[in-house]
C-alpha cells in the first residue's frame, strides 16, 4: 500500500520543518523505522523514520525546502504501484506543479511495453502468494511481538492460526543461560538489547558483563541535552502559572469504598473497564456544573466563566507531560467518558494527539495514584483556574458512626487536593467544591439526582 511520508509534528509549537538532507534516494528500498531523512526544527536537526516498508518512489520536497507540518514530503509504495494520483494530490497540497515529471513517466510507459508486461505477471504472482493469516493469529502475533509473515500456517489451506504463532514464539524464544538470566534480573538489564555470543545466539554471562562494564563508563560522563521543544514549553507555561497566579491548596480524604464496589459490579463481564479515574472525571464534571465559579479563566482584564466543561487528564510521557481534554465532560455518560479517556490516553502514548485533543481545557485532573503517592499539589494549567490532584487509594481504619454508636471499619481512602488561583477563586469556594466532590464520591447513589 502506498503511503505518504509527512513532515512530522515534533513539538507542540512546531508548525513548519525544513528538509535538511535525504538519507535515501528515489528507488531505494526502505524498511519501517529506517531513518530516511533529516529535518530541522527549532534549531535542532532530527532524523525521520519511515513508518512503513517499501520503495521510496517519490521525493516531493527537496533539500533546503521548508513545509508546514503534516504535509506530504515523499511517497513510499510498492515497486509497481500506480502513485500518479498521490503525486497530484501531494503537489496540490504543497501548492506546487510538476508537469514535467508526469510527462516523462507517460513516455516511459509508451516505449517500454515489455516492462509493463513483466510487471503484470509479477502483480499476478503477488496475488497468488497472498498469505492467509487468521485474525486470531494476527492478534496473538502482535501481543507476542512475532513477525506474523514468517510463521508457517497449519490451518486449512495453510492459513496461519493462533496456535502456529504461539509455537513459533516458543521456538524462537531468546535463549539465555540461567546465570545470565539471574544477573539480568538482579541489575535490571533488558536482555532483549543484548547480543548473545553463545551457541545458537545464546546470551551468556560474559555478554552481560561486557555490557555492564561499558554501561559504567557511559555513566561517568554527564548527559546534557538542550532545554528546547516540549520540555521548554512545559517549563515556560508552568513557571508563568506558578509565578503569576497565587496558588492556594486544599486537601480532603475521600472514602471511595462504595465506588470500588460499584465499579466492581459495572465491570463484571465487560471488556472495557471503567476506572476510578474515569469516575473522578465524571463526578468532577457534575460538580463543575453546580459550581461554575471554579470553571473560569483570567483572560486579559476579564474573568471568563466558561459555558463548556472541558476536563483535562494529565498523562505522563517520556518527553514530558501532556493533558488531553474531554470536551463537554458534563454532558457525557460515564461509559462514553471512560471510552473517550482511554482513547485519548492511548493516542497520547502513541504521540498521535492532534491540537484539538489537548486544547480548550477548563479544568484539569492529575492522578498519581498508580505511583503510590499519598497526596501532592499541582501547578495550575493556565489559563485554567483550578487543578485537582489525586493520590493512591489506601486501606485505612476509619471511625464510623452508625445508630449513635462509633465503630472502626477498614475503608479505602484517597486524598484529593485542589489547587486554585486565588485571584479568581476564594478559599470558601474551593472548599465547597471539594465538599461536593467528596459527597458524590462517597455517596455515588446521589448522582442519580443530578
Amino acid at each position: 500500500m502506498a503511503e505518504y511520508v509527512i513532515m512530522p509534528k515534533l513539538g507542540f509549537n512546531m508548525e513548519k520543518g525544513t528538509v535538511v538532507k535525504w538519507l535515501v534516494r528515489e528507488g531505494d528500498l526502505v524498511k519501517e523505522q529506517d531513518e530516511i531523512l533529516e529535518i530541522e526544527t527549532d534549531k535542532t536537526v532530527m532524523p525521520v523514520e519511515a513508518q512503513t516498508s517499501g520503495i521510496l518512489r517519490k521525493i516531493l520536497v527537496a533539500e533546503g525546502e521548508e513545509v508546514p507540518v503534516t504535509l506530504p514530503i515523499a511517497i513510499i509504495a510498492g515497486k509497481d504501484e500506480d502513485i500518479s494520483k498521490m503525486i497530484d494530490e501531494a503537489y496540490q497540497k504543497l501548492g506546487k506543479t510538476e508537469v514535467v515529471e508526469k510527462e516523462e513517466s507517460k513516455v516511459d510507459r509508451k516505449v517500454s511495453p515489455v516492462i509493463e508486461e513483466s510487471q503484470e505477471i509479477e502483480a499476478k504472482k503477488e496475488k497468488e502468494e497472498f498469505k492467509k493469516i487468521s485474525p486470531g493469529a494476527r492478534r496473538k502475533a502482535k501481543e507476542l511481538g512475532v513477525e506474523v509473515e514468517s510463521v508457517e500456517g497449519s490451518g486449512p489451506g495453510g492459513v496461519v492460526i493462533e496456535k502456529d504463532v504461539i509455537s513459533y514464539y516458543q521456538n524462537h524464544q531468546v535463549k539465555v543461560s540461567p546465570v545470565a538470566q539471574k544477573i539480568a534480573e538482579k541489575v535490571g538489564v533488558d536482555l532483549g538489547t543484548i547480543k548473545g555470543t553463545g551457541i545458537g545466539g545464546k546470551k551468556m554471562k560474559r555478554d552481560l558483563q561486557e555490557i555492564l562494564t561499558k554501561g559504567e563508563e557511559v555513566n561517568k560522563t554527564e548527559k546534557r541535552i538542550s532545554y528546547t521543544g516540549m520540555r521548554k514549553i512545559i517549563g515556560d507555561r508552568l513557571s508563568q502559572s506558578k509565578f503569576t497566579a497565587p496558588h492556594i491548596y486544599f486537601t480532603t480524604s475521600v472514602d471511595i469504598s462504595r465506588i470500588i464496589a460499584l465499579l466492581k459490579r459495572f465491570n463484571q463481564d465487560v471488556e472495557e473497564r471503567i476506572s476510578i479515574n474515569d469516575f473522578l472525571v465524571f463526578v468532577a464534571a457534575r460538580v463543575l456544573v453546580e459550581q461554575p465559579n471554579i470553571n473560569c479563566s483570567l483572560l486579559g482584564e476579564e474573568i471568563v466563566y466558561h459555558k463548556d466543561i472541558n476536563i483535562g487528564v494529565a498523562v505522563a510521557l517520556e518527553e514530558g507531560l501532556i493533558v488531553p481534554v474531554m470536551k463537554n465532560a458534563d454532558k457525557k455518560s460515564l461509559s462514553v467518558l471512560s471510552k473517550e479517556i482511554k482513547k485519548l490516553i492511548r493516542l497520547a502514548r502513541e504521540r498521535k494527539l492532534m491540537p484539538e485533543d489537548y486544547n480548550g481545557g477548563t479544568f484539569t485532573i492529575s492522578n498519581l495514584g498508580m505511583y503510590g503517592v499519598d497526596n501532592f499539589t499541582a501547578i495550575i494549567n493556565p489559563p485554567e483556574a483550578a487543578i485537582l490532584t489525586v493520590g493512591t487509594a489506601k486501606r485505612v481504619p476509619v471511625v464510623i458512626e452508625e445508630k449513635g454508636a462509633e465503630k472502626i471499619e477498614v475503608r479505602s481512602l484517597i486524598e484529593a487536593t485542589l489547587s486554585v488561583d486565588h485571584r479568581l477563586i476564594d478559599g470558601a469556594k474551593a472548599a465547597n467544591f471539594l465538599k461536593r466532590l467528596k459527597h458524590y464520591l462517597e455517596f455515588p447513589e446521589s448522582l442519580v439526582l443530578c
Partner: protein
Amino acid sequence: MKVKKITYAQAVAEAIDEEMQRDNDVILLGEDVGILGGNFKATVGLYEKYGEWRVRDTPISENSFTGLGLGAALTGLRPIVEIMFGDFLMLALDQIGNQAAKIRYMSGGQAKVPLTIRTTLGGGRSSAAQHSQSLQALVCHIPGLKVVVPSSAAEAKGLLKTAIRDDNPVIFFENKMEYNKIYEVPEEEYTIPFGVANILREGEDITIVGTSNQALNALKAAEELTKEGIEAEIIDPRTLVPLDKNTIIKSVKKTGRLLIVDEGYERCGAAGEIAMSILKDVFYYLDGPIERLTTANLPLPFSPVLEFPIIPDEKKIYQKAKEMVKG
C-alpha cells in the same frame, strides 16, 4: 439428583400439569389438546384432570384462538396456546406479531401479556413442505417476543415452566422429532432461566452452537470428532431471544472457531443472526470464518430421500467441523 425416565412429550405434559396445579390462572387452548391429549401426545391427562374450562379444544382457526389466548392473558389469565405445527404460526402472525408483541410496549407497561405459545419445529417425518418447517427466525425478528428452542426433555420441561411464569409473550418451539424419545428428567421440581446458555461439553478446538435438538446432534458429532483429535465445545443457547451472547463469545475466544447449527432456513436465519451478533467481539480471536449448518433455502420435500439431505444432522456437523479445523 434423582431422575426418572420419561418421553419428551411426557415432560412437556408434566410442566403444564405442574403449572396448572400451582396456579389456577393457567389454562390450555388449542386444536385437539383436550379429549385427544394433543396431536403429539404432549397434553395427555390434562383434560381429565382440569376439565373443559381450563383445557379447551378449539376449532381449526389459529388466528382466532391465538387472539382468544391473548385476550385472556390481558384480562388476567396465564394461557398456554398450542399451535400444532410451527408452519401454522403464519395464520396467527397478526395476533402474535402485531398484537401480543406490541401491547406491553404500547400501553406504556400498563398491560402485561403472560401468554405462552407452544408450537413445533423440525423436519424428518415426511410431513412435506407445510408441516416440516422450523420457523423460529420468523418470530425472533419481531421485538417483544421471547423465543425458546429447548433441546432435551429435561430442558423442555424446565424452560416451559419458566415460559408460563413469564409476563411477556413467549414462543416455545418443541421439536416434533423428539416427542417419543425417552430422556432422563429430574424427579424434583425445577425451572431453567431464560438467557443462560448451557455448555454441554467443553473443548478447545471449535465451538458448536446448536439450537433445539441440533445441540444434541452436535454432542454426538463431538464424540466422533474426538477420534480425529478434535475437541469440540458444544453450547445449547436454550433461548434465541434473549440470547446469551457472553457464553458464546467466551467460548469462541477460547477455540477460535464457531459453527452454528440451526434447523431453520439459512437465509435470514437464527444461525446468521447469532454469528453477526457476536462477530465484533470475537473477530480478533478467530482462526477461520464463522460457519453455519442450516436447512437449505428450499421447501421441504415429502420424499425422505430428498428430505434428509437438506436438514442438518450429526454426520453433517461432524463433516463440517472437521473441515473447519483440519481443512
